[in-house]
């Protein structure tokens, strides 16, 4: 097929990107949550040997790309990958591959099942058309390895610490341990109490994991939901839409509202976060959460 007969927009929809070298393309593959089976990797390796130049590029968002595939071979290569169960990724103004850290599957800090949420988001939104590109990230805890706040929608596992008076020995250790000085000791009629300032708390689990008597325990558990993050040309850190979303149902409802709002209000090529700045964060929050 000659170069001019190829529909670039259609190719970008299926994860093929034109290289600067005439006639050559990048094949961008889908790996939800960054996971690939060994058998899938073997197929990718063989396709890269056969149709590419024998290497793959790992992108910054857990993507696997086969470079230097000639346009004549794109379809053959795609079919071989499909045979092994590998889908193509996405380019252009649409929902990109969902990234996630290992979460509570294998990481000792993980608070949530990141992979399950990533797969759910993938089945709900992958490749949907949006005003500009749209990225989701799921990260298991406030160590934030998957950088939830650099994505259009970020989901982060969160545990709210709860103080248990009976077992506290009043040692005072938790106060200097808290990285954001959210813990305070207060004298009161019954003696004393330790409290957290939930505005400040970043749900890092340091207090709950390091108090030697386990006087800090997990209280409310859930997800911190971020909206409107982006890096790129005009970086913008995400805003917190809701600090603790307690159920998966509510999480998906809020995400759906956010995506719908962006589809309806975002201008062409305007990223979600930049739309939020144009409309005003408080207005967007009100539209998504209702009046406070």
């Amino acid at each position, binding site marked *: 097929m000659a170069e001019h007969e190829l529909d670039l927009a259609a190719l970008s929809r299926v994860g093929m990107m034109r290289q600067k070298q005439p006639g050559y393309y990048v094949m961008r593959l889908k790996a939800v949550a960054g996971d690939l089976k060994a058998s899938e990797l073997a197929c990718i390796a063989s396709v890269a040997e056969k149709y590419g130049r024998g290497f793959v590029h790992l992108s910054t968002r857990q993507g696997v790309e086969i470079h230097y595939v000639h346009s004549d071979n794109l379809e053959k290569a795609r079919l071989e990958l499909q045979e092994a169960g590998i889908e193509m990724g996405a380019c252009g103004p649409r929902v990109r591959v969902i990234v996630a850290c290992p979460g509570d599957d294998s990481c000792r800090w993980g608070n949530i099942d990141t992979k399950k949420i990533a797969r759910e988001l993938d089945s709900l939104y992958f490749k949907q058309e949006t005003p500009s590109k749209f990225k989701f990230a799921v990260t298991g805890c406030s160590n934030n390895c998957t950088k939830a706040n650099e994505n259009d929608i970020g989901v982060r596992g969160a545990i709210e610490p709860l103080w248990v008076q009976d077992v506290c*020995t009043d*040692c*005072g*250790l938790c*106060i*200097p*341990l808290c990285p954001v000085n959210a813990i305070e000791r207060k004298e009161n009629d019954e003696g004393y109490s330790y409290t957290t300032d939930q505005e400040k708390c970043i749900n890092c689990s*340091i207090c709950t994991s*390091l108090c*030697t008597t386990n006087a800090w325990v997990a209280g409310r558990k859930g997800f911190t939901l971020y909206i409107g993050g982006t890096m790129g040309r005009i970086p913008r850190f995400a805003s917190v839409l809701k600090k603790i979303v307690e159920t998966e149902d509510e999480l998906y409802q809020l995400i759906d509202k956010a995506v719908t709002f962006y589809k309806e209000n975002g201008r062409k090529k305007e990223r979600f976060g930049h739309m939020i700045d144009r409309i005003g964060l408080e207005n967007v929050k009100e539209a998504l959460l209702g009046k406070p």
Partner: protein
Amino acid sequence: MANHDIAYTLDVQGISCPANAVRVKAAVGELKDGELLEVLVDEGEAVLRVARTLKDSGYRIVKVEPREQGLSVIVSKK
């Protein structure tokens, strides 16, 4: 500390992780029942590391207080 009888003081300020925690672990290993060890440690990463080590090896943290620089952590056996 007025009402604590401190048997030893160990200063690990300025010593980086994990060497600070290794020294603390060696020192608490020498503690007899009822004895207290005071550890002087930097704030931030250092106290996190030392607290982790003490918790994992089953010691009791009696009192933690800020000093002019860094922290005083008083430790005993369980």
